[in-house]
């Protein structure tokens, strides 16, 4: 009996083991290499708007700090705030100016407000300069007739340095 207890104690000591981490380290190494490949050092990141099909492009120009304008199938958003509704690829007639059918009044008012705000800041802070930059994320399926109205209104509000957001194919 005593011998059996001694043997059990001896066996228990042997039962402690070292965790085999080699496979896990291998997996993490592969994961880190993959993440490093997708690592971005760009100062500005643009997250595509939900449900938006951005066109693909070969350009390599990185986005810079600018006002975000989204032209989706359901409306126009400025800094994630919906300002105009689009239904069946058209603007509501009350949103367009009677005299000028390319002028979108609600969009102009929001952009003009943003421009004035930026100009006021630049008066107080010399480092801040209003450059009229706008990054437009537009759905690739939209017709030019609709985008032309947005561009026209944007340029009238002082945002003439237009940058078209696309998905990189490189």
């Amino acid at each position, binding site marked *: 009996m005593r011998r059996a207890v001694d043997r059990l104690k001896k066996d228990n000591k042997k039962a402690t083991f070292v965790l085999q981490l080699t496979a896990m380290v291998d997996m993490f190494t592969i994961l880190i290499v993959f*993440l490093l490949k997708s690592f971005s050092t760009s100062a500005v990141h643009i997250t595509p708007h939900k449900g938006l099909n951005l066109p693909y492009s070969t350009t390599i120009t990185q986005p810079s700090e600018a006002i975000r304008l989204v032209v989706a199938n359901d409306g126009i958003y400025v800094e994630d705030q919906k300002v105009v509704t689009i239904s069946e690829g058209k603007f509501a007639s009350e949103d367009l100016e009677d005299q000028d059918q390319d002028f979108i009044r609600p969009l102009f008012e929001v952009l003009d407000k943003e421009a004035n705000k930026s100009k006021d800041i630049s008066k107080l802070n010399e480092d801040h300069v209003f450059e009229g930059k706008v990054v437009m994320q537009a759905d690739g399926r939209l017709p030019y007739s609709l985008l032309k109205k947005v561009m026209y209104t944007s340029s009238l509000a002082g945002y003439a340095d237009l940058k078209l957001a*696309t998905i990189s194919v490189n």
Partner: protein
Amino acid sequence: MSRTYTKKIDQEESSSFELDLAPMLALMVTLIPILLLSTVFVQVVVIDTPLPQVVQDAIEQEKNNKDRQVQLVLGMSSSSGFNLSVNIDGKQMESISVPLVEGQLDVNGLHEKLVKVKRTHPKVFRLDLNPSEDVGYSDIVKVMDSVRSFKKEEGTVTILDQKTNESAETNLMFPEVVFGNVVEG
């Protein structure tokens, strides 16, 4: 001799050890969340397209552009294809048409024509794009990509700087695409 050899093997066996991977694992567990935060799976890039300025800015720009004698205007329609006008001093000197191919815009055909135009006018980098209202936005982006630079096999173009009298080679064709018909209303 054989005894010494056996002893050596015994020493080697006893010197083998388990590598402690726990600190490495701890490092990786820290690194992975940091990298996940900075990882971009869909990279968004931009195409610069300065819009024609209105009123005072437009006038000033035109004044500054007096040196620009050659102007390229590209019309784009999903029903008739491309129509490129080469204007010199405001007069249309050449008109090049690129019709549709199987009902689709012939972007490759346009690129070939523009390569010839670029070789004739190497100093021109601006192209005025006038798409018709029915053209889709993704088609416009395809055209902008096509006119931006030469393909690798097409080589480069040499530009002579008149001030320094030095020549420089570039693979850029028309990187400055401006929507010419936006301000027309």
